[in-house]
């Protein structure tokens, strides 16, 4: 069978579609679901622009088949904000000028989401290693690191007051 019916839960909503088995997850998200926040930079698993969360783990969706996501939870950049309210990581990128052209930003944010989930208080070095699979063609790493530090601080303050 060269096609398969799959159900993928994207940002909490189940989507059932018949897809070609060779369809890449990033194309399923962008073309079948029309969610174009997830970018394709290199298509060779190098740049990280296509990073999403699959069952909470950050992965490069240009190197995963859509059929591999059957029955799983996918989180994309569209799932980060709470209505009109930015996620703290988005706020960090906004406040600290963490983006220039913005092409790498969705991938950076999704990667930062798992990084901060596992390590809520990362050192600068841990952040730099943590985003080592994400390239910023505008080379804005300095402010990307600051943006993630901003988010770490904000998220831990929120966790304390909650």
């Amino acid at each position, binding site marked *: *069978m*060269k096609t*398969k019916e799959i159900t993928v839960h994207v940002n909490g909503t189940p989507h059932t579609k018949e897809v*070609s*088995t*060779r*369809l*890449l997850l990033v*194309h399923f998200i962008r073309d079948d679901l029309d969610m174009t926040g997830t970018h394709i930079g290199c*298509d*060779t*698993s*190098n740049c*990280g622009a296509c*990073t999403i969360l699959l069952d909470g*783990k*950050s*992965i*490069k969706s240009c*190197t*995963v*088949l859509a*059929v*591999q996501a*059957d029955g799983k939870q996918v989180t994309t950049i569209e799932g980060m904000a709470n209505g009109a309210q930015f996620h703290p990581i988005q706020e960090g990128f906004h406040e600290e000028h963490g983006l220039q052209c913005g092409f790498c930003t969705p991938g950076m944010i999704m*990667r930062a989401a*798992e*990084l901060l989930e596992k390590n809520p208080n990362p050192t600068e070095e841990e952040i730099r*290693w*943590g985003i*080592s*699979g*994400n390239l910023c063609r505008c080379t804005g790493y300095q402010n990307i690191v600051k943006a993630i530090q901003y988010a770490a601080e904000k998220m831990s303050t929120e966790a304390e007051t909650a």
Partner: protein
Amino acid sequence: MIPPAFDYHAPQTLEEALSLLDEYGDDAKILSGGHSLIPMMKLRLAQPEHIVDINALTELEYIREENGVIYIGGLTREVALEESDIIHARLPLVSEVLPLIADPQVRNLATIGGNLAHGDPGNDHPAVMLALGATIVAQGPEGKRSIHINDFFEDFYMTALEPEEILTEIQIPVPPQGSGGSYKKLERKVGDYAVAGVAAQVTVDGSGACTSAGLALTNVHYIPFKVTDGEDVLVGSKLDKEAIEKAAGIASEQCDPSNDLRGSVEYKRAMVLELTRRALRDAANQARG
């Protein structure tokens, strides 16, 4: 780039996976982390008619220590190894290589079994496993068999695995007291494959004499290269400057790197020489305690 079309199978048990592989033989490819296979399919370097996705076989994801041996399931992800206390405490050589393999997203999916089964001389685990003297367990339609790592890498991208076999386990003897290991990798940028990589593992006795040595190289030969003649020089020596110099010289002369985007033959040999010195010095210092 989109991979060529294939039939997709997602077995839920090992038996089911083995029977699919038995049925399709050479026409099938196992998919684990997919981070070598999918890129190769995009480039049409692999065009399997059937994909057998073994990711549901979570019983193959484990790290255990029993009677002086570390047992690692074939489907264990790099990230699980990175987060394992057993690996950090028992196998410093493996802990050192993990953060140097690809990047965090790739390590979230990539498996140690796939890394070895792919037979890519540019992958980092093969040299480490050669230095540690690991054993590979393969399961096929006729049952299980063990393959010593020294007999595992047969040719360029070719291992001793049959198409219908699954690499189910890696067994690594826990190095005894007085051991040390180190991996040195030169890369063009973080996350890249090695320009050259060196894995060294040594054990010394009370007098400081070396009783066993493992030395192997990444990406400078058509297969992961075990430097047997270098190991022979080290065993019995005090791991002093002279012995290390001699072993490093042998490593750099006997490897057979190619001239490519990562550098010229001379450059790679020079890097092997220096990386071998450093790996052996660090391994020896650790072993002496």
